[in-house]
């Protein structure tokens, strides 16, 4: 049995059989909450491979686009350096320092900064949409 299917079935047992049999309000709530958590963990396990591959592709595309954006010294030198450092980022989560660097400038005044932020946000949206598949 696949791990994600097992977790879904554990969740269903807790929700449909264990929870209704528990007397105390607090402990019954805990049983149902355990069911919710197992369901989400199951979805997380089931989609881990596909999400990791999508994240990897998004990061590669992001780095390529940002590199093209700062090519020929367009934009501040600090941005070029931050983009270069971000190339080592293996997860979307590690893009934080790049965003912090972008906000040291004015995205509305500098078109290169604005474009860079917009491009990063595209990757962030894709990432949060994947996470929302689990969280909903």
């Amino acid at each position, binding site marked *: 049995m696949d791990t994600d299917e097992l977790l879904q079935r554990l969740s269903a047992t807790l929700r449909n059989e264990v929870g209704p049999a528990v007397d*105390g309000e607090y402990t019954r709530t805990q049983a149902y909450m355990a069911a919710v958590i197992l369901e*989400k963990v199951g979805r997380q396990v089931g989609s881990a491979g596909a999400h990791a591959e999508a994240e990897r592709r998004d990061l590669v595309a992001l780095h390529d686009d940002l590199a093209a954006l700062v090519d020929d010294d367009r934009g501040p030198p600090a941005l070029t350096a931050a983009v270069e450092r971000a190339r080592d980022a293996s997860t979307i*989560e590690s893009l*934080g320092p790049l965003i912090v660097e*972008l906000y040291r400038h004015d995205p509305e005044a500098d078109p290169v900064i604005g474009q860079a932020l917009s491009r990063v946000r595209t990757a962030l949206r894709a990432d*949060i*949409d994947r996470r929302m598949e689990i*969280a909903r």
Partner: protein
Amino acid sequence: MSAGGDAGSIDDRSAEVEAVLSSYLGERLEADGPVAIEELTRIAVGWSHETWLFDAVWTTADGSPERRGLCLRRDPGNALLREMSDLGEQFRVLRCLESTDIPAPRVHWHEPDPDVLGAPALIMEKVAGECPSPWRRAGRQFYADAAERGVLPVSFTDALVAIHTTDWRAAGLDFLGVPGPGDDFARREIATWRTLIEQSGHPGHPILDDLTGWLEANAPTTDTLTLVHGAYRTGNILIDDDRVSAVLDWELQVIGDPMYDVAYVLTELNREGTDLLSNVVPRELFVDRYQERTGIEIDENRCRYYQLLYALRSAAFWMSAAGLYADGRNTDLRLARTQWSVTVALERAATELGY
């Protein structure tokens, strides 16, 4: 805000609470004989401190029978707001509010010693009224029915007017800290929620960096400082006969921009399946009456800013909750579930930022 669910059944804790209350009140009510605790009930109020309602019954020194409805709030030490959660401050705020027109419970005692009442605690009057949850269907129906009758929408608005027109200096509320001129209020709030995020130990996310960067770059200036409740909505007010009998949940109050509260009323996040603000008040009524009675013009741009600030606050709350479970300070599985609430808060932040 705290999550209950610590070890021990409700029945075990009821006996403990009854015993400590009887002893505590026996020393303070000048009773002739023991103080009986009757109708002791613990309220399930989401993530707030442990809250118990009860009647204290005793005989006075001159032989007269007395009954007083009271409310006990205890801090079990695992509050979502962590070091920000301070019953002593709540006590002080509520005591200051007694001299104002703001409907709020009167407080009687603050007991900071955890050995006396089982945890740091305060005891206040039990105010008549109900507080239906706006997150449940029955609660939303309650508010929809009340909206039809037309009295509660006015009372809801007027209670916020009272908060924003209170002379907070005269009431002694400047101990809450008074922001400096310009954008200091907004920056203080950003710092507050960033601190809670750091304390949570929860992993960050670049959407949070984007959100805080935007908030700092766009912090508005505040010309008018008022008392700000910080969480004014249905679910945080007691309602008696269609009127606000008490504003509750004095944990997030500050001296600051009244638009912070207005934004919270306007946000669609505090209503469900209706255009009524906070599930109860028509927008036009709220805006017109609020502006007329406060003399403060509602600034939609500042409200939009504060809705983004609420996104940061929401993320901070859920990260704090998830962190309490992760580091073992609380075993309630509802907290374990909140790691996915962080995701929802981040998605909302991204949407508010326009992507």
